[in-house]
């Protein structure tokens, strides 16, 4: 299933159009002094776009019901889908990194530390993004997972931006904690603690997703 998910992406013209754009953009931003300027953001966006299709839309389309009668544990299916999407996103990240690397090789020295650190951030962050979308998708239909993902992010940002001073300290701290754990900013440099935090959060999201998906009812059709 992991490779089936990957195969579906690499057979998609839209996927390659997006990834090619990332590569070209990577080469383009190599002219800018600051390394890894834009393509890592596109990697996260790719993770959102590709991850949005896990479970929820499959439920709505009827594909999920065909899968669930097969001898595959629901949790195995969900984790495999996440892994397949993450691999597809990583492939995109490689193209972005390659684009910028080639561009910088042509024009001057390559800031390897900064580039690889940004690549690592984008790829590890993609695991969290896709896991969260799978978690939201495990109990919603259609594209509600991505609506929740973006909606929560916006709400947290707005609360912190407009009501921070008016909130009790504990509440502001709690909101900041949730924001840092679910939607972390890139660290300024390579940071093992940060990587472990992201991976453990992704693992928690996957455990919740597996639990919710295993218990979920998936009716089809109607009488």
């Amino acid at each position, binding site marked *: 299933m992991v490779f089936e998910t990957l195969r579906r992406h690499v057979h998609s013209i839209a996927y390659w159009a997006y990834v090619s754009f990332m590569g070209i953009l990577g080469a383009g931003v190599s002219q800018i002094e600051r390394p890894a300027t834009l393509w890592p953001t596109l990697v996260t966006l790719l993770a959102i776009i590709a991850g949005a299709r896990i479970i929820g839309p499959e439920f709505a389309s009827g594909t999920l019901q065909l899968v*669930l*009668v097969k*001898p595959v*544990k629901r949790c195995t299916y969900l984790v495999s889908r996440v892994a397949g999407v993450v691999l597809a996103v990583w492939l995109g990240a490689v193209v972005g990194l390659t684009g910028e690397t080639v561009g910088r090789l042509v024009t001057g020295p390559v800031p390897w530390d900064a580039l690889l650190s940004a690549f690592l951030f984008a790829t590890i962050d993609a695991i969290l993004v896709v896991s969260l979308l799978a978690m939201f998708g495990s109990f919603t239909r259609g594209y509600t997972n991505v609506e929740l993902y973006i909606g929560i992010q916006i709400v947290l940002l707005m609360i912190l931006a407009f009501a921070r001073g008016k909130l009790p300290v504990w509440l502001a701290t709690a909101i900041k904690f949730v924001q840092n754990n679910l939607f972390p900013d890139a660290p300024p440099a390579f940071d093992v603690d940060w990587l472990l935090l992201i991976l453990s959060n992704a693992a928690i999201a996957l455990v919740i997703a597996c639990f919710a998906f295993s218990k979920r009812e998936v009716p089809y*059709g109607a009488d």
Partner: protein
Amino acid sequence: MADDSSGIHVRGLRKSFRIKGGDHEVLKGVDLDIAPGEVLGLIGPNGAGKTTLMSCLLGFLHPNGGEIVIDGRPNDDLDVRRRTGFVPERMNFDRRETGRAFLRYMARLAGIPAEAADERVQAMLTRLGIADAAEKRLSQYSRGMLQRIGMSQALIHEPQFLFLDEPTSGLDPNGVLLVRELIEEQKTRGVAVLLNSHQLAEVEKVCDRVLFLHGGVVAQAETLRHSGRFAVAITLLPDSFDAAEVARIAGNAVENGVVLASVETEADIAEIVRELAATGAGIIGVKRHTADLEGIFRGHA
């Protein structure tokens, strides 16, 4: 050899849905059994709970009560699922895939090894008459072709339990005949088949038994054929026959000038007709006797 636990067994199945704060009980204690090699038809009006029943059997819905046992195991057992095929009414899967890629994916999910999957896919595409469209995207398939691909994915791993929800919906007459043939093949293979359909004529042709589901319970059960036998209705000319002789030959009493005989082959019919004619009975007509499913429908409406 089939034992008592082989096949599909359901006892006291109940399922409710929470609607607007209240519980709406859709299944109110359904019992059913499907033996290996038996085709059970499920009929009933819209809202009777047919799809809910099938969803419970397939593990899509969690029943509120009752028991589902398939070959002695719970219905969500992986070994049961390895031997289960399902054709949904609406084939709404990912239409960007080609027919071949979709079937290969389904074959792999069903546990068919990669090296055997391609061969099985080609065999199913050919058997279902869609080999020419194998490389087309499913979005380019007609509804009938999607039904065929749906049958293909359900049969590709040679299941022992087959759940069909309106499998002939959208099919042309050739497609309907093909599905009928496929169901007969599965029956011969010893597959337990549950067929949910509104097409009563089709149900009558392929099913051994029929359950009429109404208001969440089995309102009526009809046996259409038993152990390969079927019934013929022989209409006799009034006052031309000796009722006792006719009953001896046909095995049933004459009612309103019609006697029902249970036969296995066409030759049996000819033999009975010959024997009746020899007694001097005038025979007006001989036709296959079928359950009046429309009558059952109307009776419960």
